[in-house]
């Protein structure tokens, strides 16, 4: 059953310099099933993050986003977001940050602190409950971000380049651990990234986006069984997927080059 349905989603920004409208996302249609892990990959500026923000209801949009068949226009408890720059409250400890979402949603489902501790443990931060964000590494901070999102028990996890600010090694480890957590929690996941490897490794489907304006170029189904392990990245099939997506993204670069030259010539 369709869990998220995106119909004709367009996003237009006012350019801060000249106030002219700028189309970031243009008539995107996409359906995501219950429990599916969908990754969105594209070069910077293709509107992939804007799309995620619109699905969460954080920015204005045209078109419709339906969750469980109901249209959503504002953030709701069935969706939770993990942010690229972590967006942790610097004056709150790890535990208090995980409690943040529960407080805001006036969580009634029993002991909040117990629940927060559970998710701190789940992301591997037990012992760090009383640390403040500035005392943690980037990877640890994003673990807090993930725990904060999971703690409010959403049906859908929206992740906006969550590992974009991390170094390559940490990034692979986090991806691996995210999958382990996802296997246990069974959320529908929408994951934005600019790393092709990350998109293939994590996703049931990879949405390849092009830019200028942001549109879906193609959706690729990834036929790897789950659970997936790190070694998957060395498989020949993985390389095939990688090459295909890379070609799709680089033809885009070539096309843009051509358009530019045309307009200059």
């Amino acid at each position, binding site marked *: 059953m369709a869990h998220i349905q995106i119909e004709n989603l367009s996003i237009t920004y006012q350019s801060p310099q000249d106030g002219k409208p700028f189309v970031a996302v243009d008539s995107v249609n996409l359906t995501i099933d219950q429990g599916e892990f969908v990754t969105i990959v594209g070069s910077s500026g293709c509107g992939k993050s804007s799309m995620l923000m619109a699905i969460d209801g*954080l920015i204005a949009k045209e078109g419709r986003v339906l969750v469980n068949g109901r249209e959503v226009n504002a953030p709701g408890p069935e969706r939770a977001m993990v942010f690229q720059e972590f967006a942790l409250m610097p004056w709150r400890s790890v535990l208090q940050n995980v409690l943040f979402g529960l407080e805001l949603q006036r969580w009634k489902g029993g002991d909040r602190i117990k629940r927060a501790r559970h998710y701190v443990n789940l992301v591997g931060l037990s012992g760090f409950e009383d640390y403040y964000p500035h005392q943690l590494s980037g990877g640890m901070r994003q673990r807090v971000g993930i725990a904060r999102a999971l703690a409010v028990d959403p049906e859908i996890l929206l992740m906006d380049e969550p590992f974009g600010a991390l170094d390559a090694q940490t990034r692979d480890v986090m991806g691996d651990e995210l999958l382990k957590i996802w296997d246990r929690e069974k959320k529908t996941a929408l994951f934005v990234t600019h790393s092709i490897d990350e998109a293939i490794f994590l996703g049931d489907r990879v949405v390849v986006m092009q830019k200028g304006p942001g549109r879906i170029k193609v959706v690729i189904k990834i036929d790897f069984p789950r659970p997936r392990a790190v070694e998957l990245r060395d498989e020949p099939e993985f390389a095939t997927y990688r090459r295909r997506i890379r070609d799709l993204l680089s033809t885009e670069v070539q096309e843009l080059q051509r358009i530019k030259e045309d307009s200059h010539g």
Partner: protein
Amino acid sequence: MADSAPKAGRDVSSFSADSRWHKPVVGLISVGLFLAVWEMAPRLGWIDPFYTSAPARMYSVGLEVFQSGELMENIRVSLVEFCWGFALALLAGIPLGLLLGTNATARALLDPLVTALYCMPRLALLPVIIMWLGIGMESKVVVVLIGAVLPIIVNTMAGIREVDPNWARAAVSFGASRLDVFVKVLLPGSVPAVLTGVRLGLGRGILGVVIAEMYVSVAGVGHLIVTYGAAMRVDHLVFYSMLVSVFGFAAVTAVGKVEERLQSWRGD
């Protein structure tokens, strides 16, 4: 701050920038409104004009003192005192700040003294300075100097110390001598902080000359302020109080604008 859920898409935008003219227009309207109330309230009998004067009277007082020559003569006295003091503050403050910023031993020796003087209300020294130098121009110049020089020293020093050490390393790796590093890296790198010091010093210096003249003097705008204050001539008093205030405000704002301009050029 109504306790409602923020509307989608509006939320964060209420913190973002709006059109450029919005701010100055609202500001102008509000200042205009303030002047109108100040003018009308005594006329409507809401307040006693003896205590507040009124904007229209400022105009007639201004005209009167300008024609009598009182205005220009006293402005000249105050400005000369201020300019001497501030020029000395720049001449002493910037080199001293540069020295303290670059030389660790000088810093260790003088930093506690500079910090102590920076933190204390130095205008408390006013009676001592008057006792040493008399009630003439010299004491005012010195008051302006000690008011303005410390912010200049402290900010120049901080400016030098906060220059990105990688810039100096880059210069050295291209073969820069110590002098090169100072002239080509530290000096230009610290300009914004020096300007901040100049702006703060300017405010302190203007405050200094006004206070010194008000405390004891025979001429100058500060002198007029206390004279008219003691005579309860509120129209003249308010005129001169507004005059020095607007001057201080304008001078500090002007340096602030230069600072802003410089920062946007440099992209700091």
